[in-house]
């Protein structure tokens, strides 16, 4: 392809995914090679298409290079930048036709998205405040300061029907109004960036890719509710996000956007970054507040809600990263623009991290109401290697597993709740026939059981008992009546726990029981794991027709569970075998004599 428009900018994705794949070296190499030209070489936050990383994008022609390496930089410079000819071998290829697709806007993964919250992620240098401003940044907060009363701002947020994007979906405008109405000399505003759900990275991507949008949203929240101090609670496990947030706060202070008399107004507002110390329960708002106060992060009874009595007893507004990042958009573009997207009760967009057994992993933003099928098979490009789709796990440890016949359900806060799952923070993990649903339920419960703070007994004891039963099932020791007991315990934990962690912890178990009960029954009654994941319920055998007697399995078996002479057929002594799987790995692929079966003899 020849470019009519010349390349002016080279954007190198420096999100966590691409950095770990080596994008910083690519960035340095571009900088060196283009140092004496007027090309703009920039690091950006996450472009979203992590599967194809490291990503390099050129602007304004909008060409995307996938899986680029440091060694490819010279060729891109010589061919594309100097002569306007794209390097075809590095372009994204259509998986079916194998034709290269140069422009990222034409790639199916991007084509079907609607990027509102992620509008700047991947397009600006997150470490430079002026780039955010060039994209219209900090106009909304100026408008709020100069033209709008707090009532008008809160009215707009209410009218937009924005709901909390941390997962629970509480109406944001109402929360702001409660905090505004609370009488106090001192109020606080907190951003909940404690994204602890395994399998999700949306908040991290916003923090890394567009930190100023969050700061601006918090400024607007602070100004309209009357808070003068804000805290961003972010996981210490996200070092890059912490670094970029600190840079953003520093730059905003230098510009006079944070601190005293912000934007030359009579208002004061400042933000501090607080590092979480690794406790999933701190995603619960009252636990998070206790953590900032320097205490153990245990939740407390509500009411009073934080909007009435929060940090150090003062009224506190607390929202998720994506919720705040949505606010400047709504102020700039109006509530009508926002309510045009989404479903009747869930307006706007949702951000998901699409991972697991799906062809295109990455970070996506879609309008509320899109179906799972459109996400997984449209944007995601289907399951890996065309394997059979089994389930989509949505919402992490608080969410649930939805089966294939729910693929056409429109996704929003309410439909997911009805299906027994929840939006959660937006993790979407695709599972194929190699995933055991009982093992997945056990996996999530092991996580929530470990993370239970132990304050209330239904959660502390209930999750433990449930986990014991699930362990028995995957180990082949369970009795048929255990399914009923498990389901009864799950209902108990769900209804009697103090906070959101316990109230939602049984969801993965309840949804797998609801949609994949047959797998539980097979594990218990037939001692069989159809996905061949649960070691106690599978067996390895050597196919005598294929075995050449090369002795590789014999030599490597740690249990001496293989017998047979050299150059003669081998066999496995089932009573000694621990199903470690070393034999199947060691058997040369050309021979593939070791086979794994579901079930035991």
């Amino acid at each position, binding site marked *: 392809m020849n470019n009519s428009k010349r390349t002016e900018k080279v954007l190198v994705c420096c999100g*966590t995914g691409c950095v770990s794949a080596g994008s910083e070296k690519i960035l340095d190499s571009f900088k060196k090679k283009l140092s004496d030209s007027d090309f703009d070489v920039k690091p950006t936050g996450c472009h979203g298409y992590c599967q194809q990383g490291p990503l390099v994008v050129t602007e304004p022609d909008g060409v995307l290079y996938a899986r680029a390496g440091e060694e490819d930089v010279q060729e891109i410079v010589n061919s594309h930048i100097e002569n306007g000819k794209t390097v075809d071998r590095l372009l994204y290829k259509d998986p079916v036709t194998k034709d290269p697709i140069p422009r990222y806007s034409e790639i199916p993964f991007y084509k079907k998205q609607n990027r509102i919250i992620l509008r700047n992620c991947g397009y600006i240098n997150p470490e430079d405040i002026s780039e955010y401003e060039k994209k219209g940044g900090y106009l909304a907060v100026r408008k709020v300061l100069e033209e709008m009363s707090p009532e008008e701002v809160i009215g707009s947020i209410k009218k937009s029907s924005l709901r909390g994007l941390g997962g629970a979906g509480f109406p944001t405008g109402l929360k702001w109004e409660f905090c505004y109405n609370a009488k106090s000399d001192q109020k606080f505003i907190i951003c909940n960036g404690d994204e602890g759900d395994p399998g999700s*990275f949306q908040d991290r991507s916003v923090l890394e890719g567009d930190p100023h949008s969050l700061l601006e949203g918090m400024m607007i929240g602070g100004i309209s509710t009357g808070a003068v101090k804000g805290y961003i609670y972010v996981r210490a496990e996200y070092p890059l996000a912490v670094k970029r947030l600190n840079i953003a706060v520093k730059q905003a202070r230098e510009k006079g956007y944070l601190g005293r008399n912000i934007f030359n107004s009579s208002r004061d507002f400042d933000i501090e970054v*607080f590092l979480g*110390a690794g406790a999933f329960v701190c995603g619960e708002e009252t636990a998070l507040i206790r*953590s900032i106060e320097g205490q153990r992060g245990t939740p407390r009874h509500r009411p009073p809600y934080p909007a009435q009595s929060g940090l150090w007893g003062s009224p506190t507004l607390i929202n998720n990263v994506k919720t705040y990042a949505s606010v400047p958009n709504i102020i700039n573009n109006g509530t009508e623009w926002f309510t045009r997207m989404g479903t009747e009760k869930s307006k706007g967009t949702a951000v998901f991290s699409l991972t*697991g057994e799906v062809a295109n992993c990455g970070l996506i933003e879609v309008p509320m109401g899109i179906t799972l099928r459109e996400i997984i098979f449209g944007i995601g490009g289907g399951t890996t290697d065309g394997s059979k789709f089994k389930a989509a796990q949505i919402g992490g440890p608080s969410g649930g597993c939805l089966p294939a016949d729910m693929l056409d359900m429109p996704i929003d806060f309410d439909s997911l709740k009805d299906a027994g799952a929840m939006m959660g923070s937006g993790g979407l993990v695709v599972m194929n026939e190699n995933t055991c649903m009982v093992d997945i339920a056990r996996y999530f419960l092991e996580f929530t059981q470990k993370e239970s703070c132990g304050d209330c007994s239904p959660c502390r004891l209930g999750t433990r008992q449930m986990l014991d039963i699930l362990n028995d099932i995957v180990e082949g020791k369970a009795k048929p009546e255990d399914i009923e007991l498990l389901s009864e315990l799950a209902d108990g934990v769900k209804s009697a726990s103090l906070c959101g962690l316990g109230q939602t912890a049984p969801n993965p178990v309840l949804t797998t029981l609801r949609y994949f009960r047959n797998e539980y029954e097979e594990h218990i009654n037939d001692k069989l794991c159809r996905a061949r994941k649960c070691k106690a319920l599978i067996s390895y055998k050597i196919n005598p027709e294929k075995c050449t007697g090369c002795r590789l399995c014999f030599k490597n078996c740690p249990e001496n569970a293989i017998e047979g002479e050299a150059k003669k057929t081998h066999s496995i002594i089932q009573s000694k075998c621990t199903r470690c799987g070393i034999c199947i790995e060691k058997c040369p692929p050309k021979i593939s004599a070791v086979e794994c079966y579901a079930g035991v003899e």
Partner: protein
Amino acid sequence: MQDLDNILSSFEGKSGELIPVLQKIQNELGYLSEEAMLRAAEFLNIPESKVFGVASFYSQFRFTPTGRNKITVCEGTACHVKGAKGIKEEISRIKGIEDGETSSCMEYTLEGVACIGCCALAPCITINDDVHGRLDKKKVSDILKEI
């Protein structure tokens, strides 16, 4: 003791600073020693039991020194689905240490972590600050040979 005083000098001594104080001590010294926690309690004017209560609540804090190389296996959902368990077993087998253990030569510490958020690179591990993704058992053993 001198080190601890230096670390604490950047704080005001308010009880709300407990978590940042513990984080800084651990960053500088590698772990929370009994001495350090007693000193933090004195500095913040709070009971020693509270310091230990908070430190033991959060998974970030550790009470024993770590090895020179910290190997962290991501156990997030995407990694779990893509075989993180096998990766961890392989590291255990090669280095002879279980989850949470440090090798006797103080060279390696192995830990599982809930999620490092590199789900598109699953299964992945971090060695010190570097992320290694899209692993299988073979790649892991190659990477371990290099450290």
